[in-house]
């Protein structure tokens, strides 16, 4: 489980990392892991031909199923509404109206919802990181009484499907116990519940557990306080896991739908996803502008994915190993 080994850059996916180096070698060159078929079986003769046929078919299948819909989304937006709605769709846009993206951005007010979502995602990320790191550090390194009980109670929440808590959580937001705040339409309605993410705390704690206590003790002897140790020793060592937790926090808020649908009902406060859902249900929005809106909502996630694909894919693989 790569997530828990501080010295190594975690979550490296060997296959992805090594792919470019392997590209030019013959089929038999990548004997790193033995799979169902041996290199000799698919390395020559009929096997080699069959391999390339299968490879081409799978490549085309992936292109058609996973890449093409995105291509369609980006190109539909630049078509004229007439071309878009004709009974025989055009594969390559015959018309070219990139202004649709500007129209969507201004007239459909995608700009506003984009800014909202970015604010929620970044604010939520910051708050989560601060609170979750502090809690995980206390659980891992300060080891208070009943720490195990607290961690257990937090982990128990992983068993609760989010949807089962939707109704009472919504009512809690409208009237927070003891203080009586109504957080509806406030960013805090997204941020505070997001903090209660046991998975992040668990991942952080597991990582902190790997940092040798001797290191922290010697810093304490030199007079460093708890906070100083966290800031100057634990956090710099934990950069990789902080990165992973950050990515997952931001992506989760950007993608979330049902919770912001409930707690951010005022149009001015809506997230991009909820606003697109609402706009799609009205007939006033030209469909090409809606496509542009979908494309704009996707771009940050696509960029995050392409930049951090190794962490994201590796994180998934590590998660599956842990089970």
């Amino acid at each position, binding site marked *: 489980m790569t997530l828990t080994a501080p010295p190594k850059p975690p979550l490296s996916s060997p296959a992805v990392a090594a792919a470019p180096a392997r590209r030019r070698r013959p089929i038999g060159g990548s004997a790193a892991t033995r799979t*169902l078929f041996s290199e000799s079986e698919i390395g020559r003769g009929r096997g080699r031909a069959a391999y390339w046929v299968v490879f081409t078919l799978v490549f085309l299948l992936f292109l058609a199923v*996973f890449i093409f819909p995105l291509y*369609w989304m980006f190109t539909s937006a630049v078509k004229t509404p007439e071309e878009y709605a004709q009974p025989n769709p055009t594969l390559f846009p015959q018309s070219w109206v990139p202004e649709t993206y500007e129209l969507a951005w201004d007239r459909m007010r995608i700009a506003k919802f984009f800014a909202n979502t970015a604010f929620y995602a970044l604010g939520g990320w910051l708050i989560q990181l601060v609170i979750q790191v*502090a809690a995980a550090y206390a659980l891992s390194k300060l080891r208070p009484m009943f720490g195990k009980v607290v961690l257990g109670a937090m982990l128990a929440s992983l068993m609760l*499907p989010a949807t089962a808590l939707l109704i009472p959580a919504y009512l*809690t937001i409208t009237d927070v*116990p003891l203080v009586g705040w109504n957080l509806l339409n406030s960013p805090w309605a997204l941020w505070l519940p997001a903090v209660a993410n046991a998975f992040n705390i668990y991942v952080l704690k597991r990582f902190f557990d790997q940092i040798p206590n001797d290191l922290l003790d010697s810093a304490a002897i030199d007079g460093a306080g708890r906070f100083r140790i966290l800031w100057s020793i634990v956090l710099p060592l934990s950069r990789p896991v902080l990165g992973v937790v950050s990515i997952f926090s931001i992506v989760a808020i950007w993608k979330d739908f049902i919770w912001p649908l409930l707690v951010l009902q005022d149009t001015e406060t809506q997230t991009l996803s909820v606003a697109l859902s609402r706009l799609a249900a009205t007939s006033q929005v030209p469909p090409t502008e809606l496509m542009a809106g979908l494309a704009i909502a996707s771009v940050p996630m696509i960029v995050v994915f392409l930049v951090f694909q190794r962490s994201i894919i590796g994180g998934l693989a590590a998660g599956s190993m842990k089970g």
Partner: protein
Amino acid sequence: MAVATVGRQTGFRSRLSRKIQDNLMAYAFMAAGILCFAVFSWYPLVRGIILSFQQINFVTDPYWVGTENFAAIFDDPLFWTAWKNTLVFTGLALVFGFVVPLALAILLNEIRHWKGFFRVAVYLPVMLPPIVGVLLFRYFYDPGFGLFNTILRGLGLPESQWTQSSSTAMISLVLVSTWANLGGATLMYLAALQSIPGELYEAAELDGASAWRRLRHVTLPQLRFIMLVLLLLQIIATMQVFIEPYQLTGTSNPDTITVMVLIYRYAFTVNQDFGMAAAMSVLLFVVLAAFSAVYLRVTRNAD
């Protein structure tokens, strides 16, 4: 002697006060986190159960109604429709969503070129906001100028009404959902496949096992654990389906109304009745908790 006792006592006392100080410090670090869990996770769980036996009107205090909420939802014909639809959705989603990622992963594991491309491509839909996939498919499904019917026409096949016909609505929802979600399972299978020791295949090959037999007797048995885990996770996830029916077929369509959509409908649209919604949530919770318990048992035993 007296000096020694005093020394021991202050030592004990300072150790005690240090211990208290450490604990205070630790709980100060955890306070914000514990508070968030308490208010937004632990308390709503209790509140949800209580609420299912209460009526709430936002004017007076909530009052007890016994099992009336449950009686009301059992009387609602949509209740049974929603459960039936949810089970059909989960079942169909398993047919696609369970088999396809496994097959794709086994295929991808044999592919020696452009590995990065395949991994990125299959996971790309998972990264998109769910609403994007759903609205994109809404266009593909359009019976008039949608892409799918154009393709069917081009192949000389009969066209379909997709989400707009009661016979194909559910399968259409399953298709979007599968497209949007199968990347995660595929990559997890792929990771599991890569951890199968190569010697197993070599030994099987020496024994003269064909590729098919190697698949049956080496690959699949080695994947048994992760298959079970993903099966349970998928059941738990698909039983909570919401956005696909919500956006594509609406909250009133009896062909596709699911448990989550009905909860939403009880609380926020037609009934405006949080008691009924809470009662429904409790039932859903009980069903999902059963699967969660099996999941925990399975993964706990593996450690």
